[in-house]
């Protein structure tokens, strides 16, 4: 009995030790970005590092807001992440409805084709897209970027929505048909409310992905009119390049904070939905 208890105590102790280690490995680097962003310049370079904030300063944030069109970048980022997700969800919902409910020749081809096209690496499509975008003046435009942001979301979104729709009992629709509702009102008033939780979780996941996007704007947005927040990371380092070395890192940390706070807030508010969204994307 005693040894059994001792073993259990040992197990509990070991568990908390590993848990602590895990939390430390995750949180320490994030904490350190915050520390770097809010530290006054001369406090950044201590050897060994000091892990407790000695004083707070906002001069790094002041530097990036005055040195770069940060607000414009953040607006672009928000716009692209939101609208691309909405557009992709709308298009996917229409397609998913047809694929789940109306059996038509070629339905399987569309489903499998979508899945196959999602395997095509971004770098194996980017060069012709770049040429097309130059020819049709889509470079540096938000609508040009929307098209590419949204495109990447379609395959998984359609697949997940098809599996949602197949769980909606068909009687729900029949009742609507008896009432004489036509297609779009039926979709909006009958189907959408039923699958709304699923749509909300997908929206969150896709929004975070869009907010964090870097490769697409790197290639297709070269002027400030369409640049996004993740691109400000390297630009922030150049603001104070002639003055002090520390300013570069502090500036970059400040941009990192600006790029990260929104997704962290979403993560804290919607932890459960995000987990559901991640697992839906994998298991469906």
């Amino acid at each position, binding site marked *: 009995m005693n040894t059994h208890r001792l073993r259990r105590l040992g*197990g509990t102790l070991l*568990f908390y030790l*590993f*848990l602590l280690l*895990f939390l430390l490995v*995750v949180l320490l*680097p994030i904490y*350190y*970005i915050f520390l*770097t962003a809010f530290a006054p310049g001369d406090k950044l370079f201590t*050897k*060994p*590092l000091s892990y407790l904030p000695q004083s707070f300063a906002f001069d790094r944030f002041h530097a990036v807001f005055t040195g770069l069109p940060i607000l414009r970048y953040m607006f672009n980022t928000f716009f692209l992440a939101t609208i691309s997700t909405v557009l992709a969800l709308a*298009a996917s919902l*229409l*397609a998913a409805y*047809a694929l789940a409910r*109306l059996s*038509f020749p070629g339905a399987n081809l*569309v489903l499998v*084709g*979508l899945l196959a*096209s999602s*395997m*095509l*690496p971004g*770098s*194996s*499509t*980017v*060069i*012709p*897209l*770049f040429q097309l975008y130059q020819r049709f003046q889509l470079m540096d435009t938000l609508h040009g970027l929307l*098209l590419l942001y949204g*495109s990447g979301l*379609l395959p998984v979104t359609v697949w997940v929505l098809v599996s949602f729709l197949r769980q909606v009992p068909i009687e729900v629709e029949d009742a609507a048909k008896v009432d004489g509702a036509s*297609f779009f009102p039926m979709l909006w008033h009958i189907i959408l409310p039923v699958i709304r939780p699923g749509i909300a979780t997908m929206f969150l996941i896709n929004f*975070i992905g869009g*907010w*964090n996007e*870097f490769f697409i704007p790197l*290639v297709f947005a070269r002027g400030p009119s369409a640049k996004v927040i*993740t691109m400000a*990371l*390297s630009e922030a380092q150049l603001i104070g390049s002639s003055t002090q070395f520390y300013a570069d*890192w502090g500036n*970059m*940390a400040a941009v*990192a904070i600006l*790029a*990260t706070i929104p*997704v*962290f807030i979403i*993560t*804290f508010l919607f*932890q459960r939905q995000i*987990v559901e969204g*991640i*697992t839906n994307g994998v298991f469906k």
Partner: protein
Amino acid sequence: MATRRLLLAYLLVAPVVIWRLSTSVYPFLRTFYLSFFDNSPVRRTFDYIGLENYIALTKDTNVTQSLSFTFFFVTVSVTLQIVLGLGIAQLLNRKFRLRTLARTVNLLPWAIAPIVTGAAAVWAFNQDYGLVNDIIWRISGERPLWLVNVTNARFAVTLTDTWKNTPFLAVIFLSGLQGIPTELYEAAKIDGSDGIRSYWYITLPLLLPLIVSMAIFITIFRVLSFEIVYALTGGGPGSATSLLSYVVYLQGFRVLNFGYASAVAMLLFAIVLVVGILGFGLLRQSWNRL
């Protein structure tokens, strides 16, 4: 009535199909086509050269080094992620106070942008003022050089990737664990099996198909990685930490060698395809074992 229904169906799938055809399928086919050309906007060339780009590929050290790093990166990162992901899932599956908070914390690295992770890692791996070396120094008194030494730079990229992406896998494994009926463990307890034995004989075999399918999935994602290498090492030292997506980017958008970059992109696609096919075979086997 039937034709109306059919027409509706095609109208409904049309936006998605056209959208994907124009932004994914067509550009992909065009990349394949371009890979047989010497196409550069700088030299103003568009000449058919057959397989020359592909022959040049085999002699390009940027490409061969990328392949060797890809192999290292995939092997180490995927192994670490699976082992650590299973461990974290086990931790977060246990009941304790503040468990929900710990699960949220687990999501934070997943939520951070890959490019932000890469940029922060440059700072973390700084020799004198970086977080990593500060901790190593406190323990061992040494301050290793990370980003200029071939082996260390490779580990720096791999560890950064592991930090960023393990939480995603932990989430998946956690939901896999939650799907295992508790009766199985209770039966094992009656048989006298303790924690580690029941993990080995019950948990792992049941999770195996999930582990295998996720291994394929994350292997493909590792092969396609771009941001961490772009931000952390720029492929260096030399091209010791370069990955093929990064070579495509450099050749396509810095050197503006569209034809050659397309050939590299096709090599990348071929690798993804082979991994996918091999992986699918492996997956079927692991299902059959169950």
